[in-house]
């Protein structure tokens, strides 16, 4: 992944989130406080605006995006997405074209940091339930076809619906959360799906 592709990733994520803002808010209204679309929209718009167009350092691009998300999203998703991109950026610092293996290692480091920050595990009906299986997939499968990655993200997202929420505001709904989609898992899917899109374009 080149720096330009990383920038495109942020752009594409922002685009998908903007296009699905209402849906994200709607999901968060059902199981939360109804601001997830607004939060993510605000955050990714800021992340796009601050993009350093000149650097070829992938780490720098991603770290900049993370810092921006951290300082603009707020709520639960801000520190989590902020941490994800900042840690991924830290792992790829100085790299101009990391390969899929480096990206995978970066994902592991970033997702572990998110989990620590949120004191969350997979299976608690959060964005982790998309990030964690996708990262495991990257770690264990030979991802020759990037579409498989998107499918994995999609399948994980699908599964989240069946979980009972244990973390975040959705946890207040307890067993009533089963059968409903988690807003953060949905936005995580858009971010990962955006990654697949830009990586495929780069190929």
């Amino acid at each position, binding site marked *: 992944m080149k720096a330009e592709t990383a920038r495109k990733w942020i752009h594409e994520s922002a685009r998908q989130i903007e296009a699905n803002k209402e849906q994200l808010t709607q999901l968060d209204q059902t199981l939360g406080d109804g*601001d997830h679309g607004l939060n993510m929209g605000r955050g990714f718009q800021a992340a796009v605006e601050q993009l350093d167009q000149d650097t070829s350092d992938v780490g720098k691009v991603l770290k900049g995006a993370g810092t921006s998300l951290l300082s603009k999203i707020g709520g639960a998703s801000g520190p989590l997405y902020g941490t994800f991109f900042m840690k991924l950026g830290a792992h790829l610092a100085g790299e101009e074209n990391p390969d899929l293996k480096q990206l995978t290692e970066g994902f592991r480091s970033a997702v572990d940091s998110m989990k620590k920050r949120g004191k969350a595990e997979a299976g608690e009906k959060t964005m982790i339930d998309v990030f964690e299986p996708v990262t495991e997939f990257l770690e264990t499968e030979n991802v020759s076809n990037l579409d498989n990655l998107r499918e994995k993200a999609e399948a994980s997202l699908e599964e989240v619906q069946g979980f009972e929420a244990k973390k975040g505001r959705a946890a*207040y*709904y307890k067993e009533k959360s089963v059968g409903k989609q988690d807003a953060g898992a949905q936005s995580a899917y858009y971010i990962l799906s955006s990654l697949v899109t830009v990586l495929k374009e780069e190929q």
Partner: protein
Amino acid sequence: MKKIMNEPNQMVDQMLDGLVKAYPDQLKRLEDTTVLVRKELSPDKVGIVSGGGSGHEPAHAGYIGEGMLDAAVSGEVFTSPTPDQVFEAIKAVDQGKGVLLVIKNYTGDVMNFEMAAEMAEDEGINVEYVTVNDDVAVEDSTHTTGRRGVAGTIFVHKIAGAAAASGASLSEVKELAARVIQHTRSIGAALYPAEVPGSGNPGFELGDNEIEVGIGIHGEPGMEKTDLPSADQLSEKLLDEVMPELELKQGDEVALMVNGMGATPLMELYILNNHLHDLLTNKGITVADTKVGNFMTALEMAGASITILKLDNELKTQLQAPSKTIAFTI
């Protein structure tokens, strides 16, 4: 929902400016932030910082001032503020004796404030925090998010603020704040929902004769929906929920807060207070201090919460110590 506003995304910014213009002698805004700070800090004391999403006014800026907070950080409506903003607040109020953060127990608030604390520690500022979790509507369990922080937060502001004003150290202030939290329980009920500006929908729905008992201050669900009870029945119901964990017994002294959720006429709060006093008195419990008003709101949600703080001598003294803030003056 009709609201007096310009663009939804300008609300917090314009509210903060409007606050400073209303109280120019008491507040100032840190440039390019959502942080309001006391115009003149009392010298040489532990700093107290609180904050959270907007939409809970007068929380949190209404508690800035003598004997309470030194700064308040505002997020977007119902959204925790970000770590960089909290960090700015910490830096602004630290006078070398350290800073206590008062956090309400929501995942977002906890994470953002924790990250700010880490940033401050990295710069050598001594930061501690307490997490308020007074809402009995939610189970407390280490496996889940745990109980929410609601109006009991104001008692924490007051007592921690008084301790800091009296010259206590950071660890003493923190210890006292933790004791307030341990002895504070709240529960609320909503009659009508609130709507996050720009979202286009109310946060939840209730039937024409329905209320939700145990509602959170962002419209999080409660314990049950019931038919609208009489004020007396409602007081009994709410009291039955908050009392058990406090293990109150005859002769105990408490502070009672009857808090409006934003759109509730004061009249209704006084009526609630009337019967709550009778119920407590009948149980042999002394209400040594009563606060009735809008202290921790949820935009235009209608309904009320009650908070009980079990007092001991020190808590009582600090609760009744002088304070001079916009929303809480003694």
